């Protein structure tokens, strides 16, 4: 699938302008609150009419204001998972799921239904009414309902936002399973970078209504020239590490080309690879052998790029064993350690800050 958008939409003082070409897979839409993420999704789904736009999905025109063409939402075959789940309160869980099946593009095969119910752990909830479900359960039903309508594209608007932390983790687990098994392309809106880093392959960066970057998520995360991304609180890069399968004092060991990482969490079988979002603010730098320190995780790295300064801080991009690693340091550190491209350093990462 490809979703091609070229749109310009005014609403009061707010101006949304997006030109993007999105391939199949999961695309994260990231930006601060008020950046226009939800408005963008509503326009793609056809729930909001843009002032000027040409949007096509797999070559089919969804909306072309210049040619006066507009496809109503029920013909687009675009599933939508809302932040507030929007289950039909007068229907049971099963009836909600069937609503998606019955009206969708192609009635989902019974075996597909069983798979989706299994995937989202809904077997025990089928006879319940939406009012009796917890927030996380409601979202799982909403995701299943959308999947069963056999969408060509699935839009998810901060599905985890209204949940508390443990429920959010649980739902993210289910979402990861959906992303891994489903072939449906998705747009996943969130203002949480770790969430997006965990689920998405592509990233669309929205700032103040403007799409400032769009591309493979690993590339964008490892750039110091995208303030909306690199200066956010949760900025960071993803490291792929392989479990060694040993645990010591509650810390599991993982190997990476630049060194060994020890992190808390359940023991992962040896040889399994996990994605680790390392936040820029959790990475410190040292030149030479750092000696006695509480920080156990040390990766040999080379400075690739020093970003522009902002408020006394700046981002430094490292090459750690072939992976990009972003770190945030003070300008004073840049001077003292004479950080510049090619400088060999040791990246120090606190175990306590790592989770996957």
């Amino acid at each position: 699938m490809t979703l091609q958008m070229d749109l310009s939409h005014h609403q009061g003082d707010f101006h949304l302008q997006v030109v993007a070409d999105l391939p199949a897979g999961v695309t994260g839409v990231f930006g601060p609150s008020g950046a226009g993420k939800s408005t963008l999704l509503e326009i793609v789904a056809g729930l909001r009419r843009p002032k000027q736009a040409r949007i096509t999905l797999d070559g089919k025109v969804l909306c072309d204001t210049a040619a006066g063409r507009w496809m109503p939402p029920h013909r687009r075959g675009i599933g939508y998972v809302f932040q507030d789940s929007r289950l039909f309160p007068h229907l049971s869980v099963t009836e909600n799921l069937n609503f998606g099946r019955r009206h969708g593009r192609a009635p989902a095969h019974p075996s597909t239904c069983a798979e989706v119910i299994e995937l989202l752990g809904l077997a025990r909830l089928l006879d319940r009414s939406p009012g009796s479900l917890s927030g996380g359960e409601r979202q799982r039903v909403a995701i299943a309902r959308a999947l069963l309508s056999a969408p060509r594209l699935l839009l998810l608007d901060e599905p985890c936002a209204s949940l508390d932390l443990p429920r959010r983790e649980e739902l993210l687990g289910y979402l990861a399973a959906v992303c891994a098994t489903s072939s449906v392309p998705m747009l996943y809106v969130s203002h949480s970078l770790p969430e997006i880093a965990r689920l998405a392959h592509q990233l669309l960066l929205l700032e103040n209504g403007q799409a400032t970057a769009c591309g493979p998520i690993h590339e964008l995360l490892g750039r110091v020239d995208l303030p909306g991304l690199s200066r956010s609180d949760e900025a960071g890069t993803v490291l792929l590490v392989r479990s060694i399968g040993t645990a010591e004092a509650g810390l599991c060991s993982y190997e990476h080309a630049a060194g060994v990482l020890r992190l808390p969490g359940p023991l992962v079988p040896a040889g399994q690879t996990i994605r680790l979002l390392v936040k820029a603010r959790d990475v410190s730098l040292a030149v030479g052998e750092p000696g006695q320190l509480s920080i156990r995780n040390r990766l040999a790295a080379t400075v690739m790029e020093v970003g522009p300064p902002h408020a006394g801080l700046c981002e430094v991009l490292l090459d750690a064993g072939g992976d990009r690693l972003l770190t945030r340091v003070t300008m004073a550190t840049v001077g003292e350690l004479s950080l510049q491209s090619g400088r060999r350093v040791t990246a120090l990462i606190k175990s306590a800050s790592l989770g996957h």
Partner: protein
Amino acid sequence: MTIFTPDELTTIQLSLKVSAWATLVSLPPGIAVAWVLARREFPGKWLLDVLIHLPLVMPPVVTGYLLLMAFGRQGPLGIWLETTLGFTFAFNWTGAALACGIMGFPLLVRSVRLSIESVNRGLEQAANTLGANPAWVVVRVTLPLALPGILAGAVLCFAKALGEFGATITFVSNIPGLTQTLPGAIYNSIQLPEGEAAALRLTGVAIALSMGALLVSEWLTRRLRKREGQAR
């Protein structure tokens, strides 16, 4: 049922028939108009709103007189109906039902409109994104969720029809066994020298029917709320 005379029984039956028909026939257009007023914007919407509400604020006699001019034996619509369909409202129970329906219509529309407006539009959007076309959304989402208001509106319309007097008597007169409903019969009894006992009996019936209608609607609404689960 020995406490009622045969004439009184006929009146009660006729009242129920007229009110039931008035309500049933008003429901489909009432729901349609309420939906249009709740969910659509168009030029002249205020005019439709005013027209619907006129019977509520006009003297009932005026409504009845207008009906007489339009649907009476000499009225253009009345003549047309008589010649093409062989059907007449004039001095007929159907005319009473028409008058009652028109008087109850604004109450029905108001109640249904309020309940449609209170249906979360987000749910309608969700149904849209699942592939349901607008008509299906109305049938499967909007109306089921607005059902308590629709029932309440129907009961209001029914009660209004039971009590309708001015428009009915002006349009189709007060003919026992043909167009005389409870209020007309009560009024007639009061005019008679020894009619007070009959008036009292019929008054009791009117009170019982009105209360019965309210209780039924209350019960239905409560059952619906329960079925919808502890939905918020």
